[in-house]
């Protein structure tokens, strides 16, 4: 183990280490803590100039209530959910099938296709912007939830295919041969043998893709106009313009926007980290 395990340290250093941990954490998360505290600070206190002291009057309910009701926060939140959930399911479903195909079957162009999927991940998204926007305008889907959902499915499919193809490739091939000998069709092999085996990978990917799509801002800006289909990221960014000085409301909005992905992360931490690092070390 590196560095030297703390049990082998001098007692003084050990105590010092344990003492610095919470301090380091405090400094690291200071911006976040400040936002949390501000989100429960009352407006009067902010006008008095108490930005950083401990809040004297708590306005937890008032701030969140105001952030939720004076702007279409709930509407944005709903939009984000309606974009993100189908996008995650869609991208993972398409990528599971494509990854299965690329891992199991040998055919001409297999590697070239795989390279295309991988390469697509690294493309600067700006080069897609104008044609994608135009495409949705022509399809009549511009400024609808469909546009964002469909685009995220397509874009995330590339990343998920890379991940799932590598995962499936590491399973023993005998499983598939055994399935074929038993008379299982190709779909049954995918559905009954492979899918149950890749469940941990699917969980890891869904969490990861959820946060990617939930936090997206660029496509939300490009493919929506006004409030109709705008997700939470756009809504929160707009809060700032509406209330130039109301940092307590902006903070409340930020917390609301961050909550789902932060909660997802804490609930499914192990999967999340597995997803990040699996995709990582394979490159």
């Amino acid at each position, binding site marked *: 183990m590196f560095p030297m395990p703390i049990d082998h340290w001098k007692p003084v250093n050990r105590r010092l*280490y344990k003492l610095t941990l919470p301090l380091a954490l405090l400094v690291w998360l200071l*911006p976040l803590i400040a936002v949390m505290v501000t989100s429960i600070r009352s407006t009067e206190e902010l006008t008095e100039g108490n930005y950083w002291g401990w809040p004297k009057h708590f306005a937890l309910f008032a701030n969140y209530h105001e952030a939720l009701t004076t702007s279409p926060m709930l509407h944005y939140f709903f939009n984000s959910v309606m974009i993100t959930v189908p996008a995650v399911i869609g991208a993972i479903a398409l990528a599971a*099938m494509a990854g299965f195909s690329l891992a*199991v079957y040998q055919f001409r162009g297999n590697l070239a296709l795989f390279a295309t999927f991988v390469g697509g991940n690294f493309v600067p998204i700006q080069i897609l*912007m*104008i044609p994608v926007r135009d495409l949705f305008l022509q399809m009549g889907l511009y400024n609808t939830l469909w546009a964002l959902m469909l685009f995220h499915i397509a874009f995330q499919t590339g990343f998920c295919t890379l991940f799932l193809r590598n995962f499936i490739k590491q*399973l023993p*091939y005998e499983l598939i041969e055994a399935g074929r000998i038993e008379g299982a069709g190709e779909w049954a092999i995918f559905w009954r043998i492979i899918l149950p085996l890749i469940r941990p990978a699917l969980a890891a990917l869904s969490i990861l893709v959820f946060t990617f799509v939930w936090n997206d801002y660029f496509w939300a800006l490009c493919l929506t106009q006004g409030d109709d289909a705008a997700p939470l990221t756009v809504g929160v960014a707009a809060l700032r313009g509406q209330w130039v000085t109301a940092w307590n409301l902006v903070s409340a909005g*930020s917390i609301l926007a961050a909550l789902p992905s932060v909660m997802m992360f804490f609930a499914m931490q192990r999967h999340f980290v597995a997803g990040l690092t699996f995709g990582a070390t394979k490159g």
Partner: protein
Amino acid sequence: MIDSVPDTPLHQPMAPAAKAAGKRLSPSARRQRRAAWLFLAPACVMVALFVLYPILKSISLSFYSWDGMTDKTFVGLANYIELFHAPTFYTALKNNLLWLLLFLLAPPMGLAIALYLNQAVAGIRLVKSLFFAPFVLSGVVVGLIFSWFYDPTFGLLALILGHGIPVLGDAHYVTFGIVFAALWPQTAYCMILYLTGLTGLNADQIEAARMEGARGWALLWHVVLPQLRPTTFMAMVVTIIGALRSFDLISVMSSGGPFESSTVLAYYMYDQAIKYYRYGYSAAIAVVLFAIMLVYIAWHLRRLLRNEH
């Protein structure tokens, strides 16, 4: 760990008989070929429609003058010529480079934090997760938090320094201010990569090195870092891509200003398209950004495909 599973080939070995028969495949082989394409088709359609086609379309658009509504006019290389004469292009390019250089601080800082946290003490799992939390936040939220942090009248920075600096309003500081904000989640990301890398270290080698008297820096440099090379590679990959893609924070914190001093190619492109309806010109900017990243994509793909053989 997932990665310790040996990479057994899953490809069905091509039967010699089928090879000899040439195009005449057995019914089962034919069924499998059909299945292969059916499984691939939906993903291929989506990627072709929303990723591949748009790339080609952007490249072709960059040779036209177009406002998005009236007819396109072919202008040859005019967009590129204009771009290479625009001062903002060079500001953007310089800022992209600055982002890249400063962003590369994230892997070493991530490693430092990972080394610091890689101890088995009570509650360390929670501490590690909390250290990672910034990465999960949206760029918009991080941007808002730091804008507030930098506010010259009542921001935290003003409080710490005792006087305000208009970080986001000053052309000299603005890019540094934004990159600093962006380093926060990026360092968290690199940290988690290194924490995972550290758990996979070869304990015997480290023990052996310790026996021979290697300590601290020497041990880190000569024994640990070489073992962490795949992790370092990955941390660099995600950091470089992150630096070149930077958009959200710039958009939220400065909108490329003041006077376009904090713009980067990605933001400049967006600005020209959305604000000025100059689609051909902004396509040209996107193509330049794409060309820069292509060097990098090609290098990465080569590495990836080499591992396949």
